């Protein structure tokens, strides 16, 4: 077990350096003068230019700049936003709970619906139910989610007027930030209606962000179940006359879960990409909207820092999934690939 963990962690080191190289190179590959881009000033005097160059460390050799950069990263310095003049890490941590909250809600929705319908489709394989569920999940998987979001806004927000179309909570409420998770904070604040308003604002973004993971989970659960259902022990369980609930729920599902958990873990990247679009559509004040805003306002330190931080989050989640996978399925631990 120990050597398995070490091996998996060691694999992350070259990727960490790869990601830092990309984010380091990003700023230097931008078109135009990097000093002008990073300082956010125009028409600098040559003296000011030289001063900025020295301050940003751009006068040093490239390898030294990179070394400095990684050294700072390892000490938690992800640069300073040109726009707000605040550390990128602070901004990131402030906005991240909003993205995490939305992501978790979307994942929960995807699992709660995707898992049962996947199992159901596998059990009813070949029937009209199976075909219907698989057809719907293929549509979900093919969905341009930015359009899906707009469509829901048109229908639920515009025509039927059922849901709010942007933001996290009604402007009538001023909830004190404690955890950053609005659903928790509104409950803590005790303001009447605040929690309901937060939930109300979350409905559409959650559906939009959850659609693709839901489709993937349904499809993968079905195929994992199908694989397991043809195993001997399932036939034995059936032959013993166990109830279908026991056969499917206990014997089959437990083994199919190995695949399903991995699939769920690997959705983090999909969620993050989806968050960029979903948050932009619903003006959700999270990481995705922040990154897009930073790209457009040419706040390149923010983009650079965000890139590394997001990559690190995804790498850690993938590591945890890998380790969990090793724990559930010990065979993995003893292979060397």
């Amino acid at each position, binding site marked *: 077990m120990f050597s398995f963990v070490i091996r998996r962690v060691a694999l992350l080191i*070259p990727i960490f350096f790869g990601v830092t190289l990309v984010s380091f190179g990003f700023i230097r590959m931008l*078109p135009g003068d990097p000093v002008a881009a990073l300082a956010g000033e125009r028409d600098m005097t040559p003296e000011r230019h030289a001063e900025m160059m020295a301050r940003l460390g751009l006068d040093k050799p490239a390898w030294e700049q990179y070394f400095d950069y990684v050294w700072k990263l390892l000490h938690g310095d992800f640069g300073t936003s040109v726009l707000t003049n605040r550390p990128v890490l602070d901004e990131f941590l402030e906005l991240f709970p909003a993205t995490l909250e939305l992501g978790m809600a979307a994942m929960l929705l995807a699992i709660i619906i995707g898992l049962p319908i996947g199992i159901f489709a596998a059990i009813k394989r070949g029937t009209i139910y199976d075909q219907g569920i698989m057809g719907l999940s293929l*549509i979900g998987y093919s969905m341009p989610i930015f359009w899906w979001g707009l469509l829901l806004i048109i229908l639920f927000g*515009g025509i039927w007027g059922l849901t709010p179309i942007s933001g996290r909570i009604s402007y009538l409420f001023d909830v004190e930030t404690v955890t950053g998770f609005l659903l928790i904070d509104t409950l803590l604040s005790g303001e009447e209606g605040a929690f309901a308003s937060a939930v109300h604002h979350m409905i559409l973004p959650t559906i939009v962000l959850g659609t693709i993971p839901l489709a993937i989970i349904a499809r993968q659960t079905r195929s994992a179940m199908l694989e397991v259902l043809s195993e001997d022990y399932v036939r034995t369980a059936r032959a013993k006359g166990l109830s279908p609930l026991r056969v499917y729920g206990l014997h089959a599902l437990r083994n199919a879960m190995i695949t399903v958990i991995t699939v769920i873990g690997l959705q983090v990247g999909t969620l993050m990409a989806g968050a960029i*679009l979903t948050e932009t559509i619903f003006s959700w004040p999270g990481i995705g909207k922040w990154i897009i805003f930073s790209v457009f306002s040419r706040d390149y330190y923010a983009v650079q820092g965000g890139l590394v931080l997001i990559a690190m989050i*995804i790498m850690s989640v993938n590591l945890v999934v890998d380790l969990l996978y090793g724990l559930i399925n010990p065979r993995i631990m003893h292979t060397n690939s």
Partner: protein
Amino acid sequence: MDSSAGSARKSGILRRDILEFWYYFSENKAAVIGLVFLLGIIFMAIFAGFIAPHDPTIQYRDCLEQPPTWGAEKCNFLFGTDYAGRDMLSRIIYGTRLSLIAGGMVVILCLSIGIMFGVIAGYYRGWVDITIMRIMDTILSVPGLLMALVLVAILGPGLLNAMIAISITYLPYFVRLTRSSYIIENTKEYVIASKISGASKFRIMFITILPNCMAPLIVQATLSFSTAILDTAALGFLGMGAQPPTPEWGTLIAENRDLMLSAPWTVTFPGLAILLAVLAINLMGDGLRDAFDPKLKRS
């Protein structure tokens, strides 16, 4: 071996393979529907000039934000018009060109570069392999859309740069797939026989082994084709892909987004076009996978 007899036998085998493949593929009705639909889209893209009822750039100033109408005398636009009075249907029809070109370019770039790196990694192993694969792992550690955004920020917004950026984010899948099936094939007897009979490095890599790795690559290429259309549209929607007034599907949605509540058809139809195109390709991709993979055939 007599070369003409050899090639005749080869073409016979090829024909049998194709027939067998078609047999399995056509068993999946949904996949056939997807294929037919895709052919229809390709036809529409090629003959956009004849099919589109209007020029996609002409602004009919008397018919701004005209709702979809059928058979009216004045301002007769089946899918309505946008904020500038341009015919939505014609813009969507012309948009198929851009989406198909984008998808096709991404797949071609990924296949050619991905196969090259994958085969090199699989053939040389050692540090070459490790270097290539770690680079690919790095690309994969950032969400595709974010990576593409960052790359477009470097390259500058535009359809071509969006295609290049998207290709880079898909590359790892192709390299991994090629490498792993290459390594599996590499130990088989026909490869050893070919090595013993003195075939050159190049011949072993690309003529002996590569054709036997193609099935999973074709499936991956099909699925990447559809995701490339989605991602091109997403970048266009975010303002980082094709720029207005180019009638790219994602860009169409972005430029009409302010109208979505007052003139919903300007947003609904382009998105529907994306969904249908992507769905058709994915249906076909599922069929291809089932037809290629005998283990999955029964499920």
